[in-house]
């Protein structure tokens, strides 16, 4: 699975997609593969304030719970309710149907701190050795 070029990426394997002012976020293919089967997602509350780099959600595999860090700061406007009954979407479609939440960004300049698809792909190749 390729890392979509229109997204930006964090070192903790979250992605963010810009579509207007609300930015959709999720975790990458690499992250879902490392986690294994996802069985539960603690989705953030709509209206919650999030800060770039701070934990805003938890994805649970059978073995462990993993914090998910907000790739950008702002307010949660929408959460992917489908994940309540179908947490496995995070595994099968991490970049599309497995999205976690939409965030109204408080500062879109924060996106420049994140990696491009090309840089993220190189980064993952480096840590996978």
């Amino acid at each position, binding site marked *: 699975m390729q890392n979509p070029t229109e997204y930006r990426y964090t070192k903790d394997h979250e992605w963010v997609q810009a579509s207007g002012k609300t930015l959709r976020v999720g975790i990458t293919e690499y992250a879902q593969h490392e986690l*294994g*089967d996802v*069985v*539960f997602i*603690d989705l953030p509350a709509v209206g919650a304030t999030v800060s770039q780099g701070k934990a805003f959600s*938890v994805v*649970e*595999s*059978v*073995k462990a*719970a993993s914090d998910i860090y907000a790739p950008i700061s702002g307010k949660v406007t929408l959460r992917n309710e489908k994940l*309540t009954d179908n947490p*496995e979407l995070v*595994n099968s479609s991490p970049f599309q149907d497995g999205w976690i939440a939409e965030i109204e960004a408080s500062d879109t300049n924060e996106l420049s701190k994140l990696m491009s698809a090309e840089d993220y792909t190189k980064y993952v190749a480096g840590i996978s050795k």
Partner: protein
Amino acid sequence: MEENLKRTPLYDAHKRLGAKFVGFGGWEMPVSYTSMIEEHVNTRENVSLFDVSHMGEVFVSGKNALKALQHLTTNDVSKLAIGRAQYSVLANEKGGAVDDIIVYRLGENDYLVCVNASNREKDFQWMIQHNPYEAVIEDRSDAYAQIAIQGPKGAALFAKLLGMNPTEFSREKFPGFSVRKFPDEYKSIPLIAARTGYTGEDGFEVFLPAESAEKMWQGLLDIGAEFNVKPSGLAARDTLRLEACLCLYGHELSDDRDILSAGLGWVTKFDKEEFIGKAALEAINKSGVQEKLCGFEVVDPGIVREGAEVFDASGALVGKVTSGTKPPTVGKAIAMAYVPVKYSQPGSELFAEVRGKKLRMRGVPIPFYKRSK
């Protein structure tokens, strides 16, 4: 990964199959090959292979073997006919568990004790230090590998490997908890096969020489396509055993907690003349246990895991979760915990704390899963 982890004879085979590895009890073991959920479901529906070579094999023999084992274990070894096996406990003087084990009687004065990987050294030392009858006790763990074949199609797969009629492996002909030697049916590799397991499914645990493990492992995979055989890792092993409410040492069992609280009264035979821990366990049996190991379904959204604190409705801390996850067959978050006897009835409502939130749990009858036949 920790340093200096040991590897079983099947390590290379797991690598070739693309397994992900994890450190467990000092061993580098496959945690999964494809996905834990797939491996778990395949075990319940078809058949899976587990490399359990990290477990230990201690042989007890000689004319005082029975006496020695009666002294060391809580169950009644005198009830074991040749070719039979029993689940049991090596208890300490307080009635806690040094380890939970299976004792297999292979011959007149010839017993195999299978011990947990994490307790290999400890158990062997314990046994030789508590051997007043001077039975011959040998740790042959390094010489043996162990492959578990688990699932409803396990008997058919094993029969095919041995070139035998599957009717020879019916439950009538080869009952559960019986053990048999197959010295040359499979490529002249001496096998000891028992109809035991740790998944809640039918199946076999096969002990064989370490140097032949890869051959048998590959042999099973090569002929097993018609049964949908798949290798399965420790992640699935844990979810399977939890659904079946089988104890895991270090979680439900430990040196410090009496085994009667764990519900192991059924392998504690008080009419035996003596055994280590008998006095302590008799006293507990008489006065009643204070806490009981119970099963819970998590009612609120979330997953409750080992170590989570358990509270009652008034907010008092009443226990701790020993194991918990959301396993595929049961399909809901479940947990096991020791709680005061007054909360041990199914239907009891307690609360487990997860990341600062209290999740409601309801006591349910165990096991969470029972196979249909």
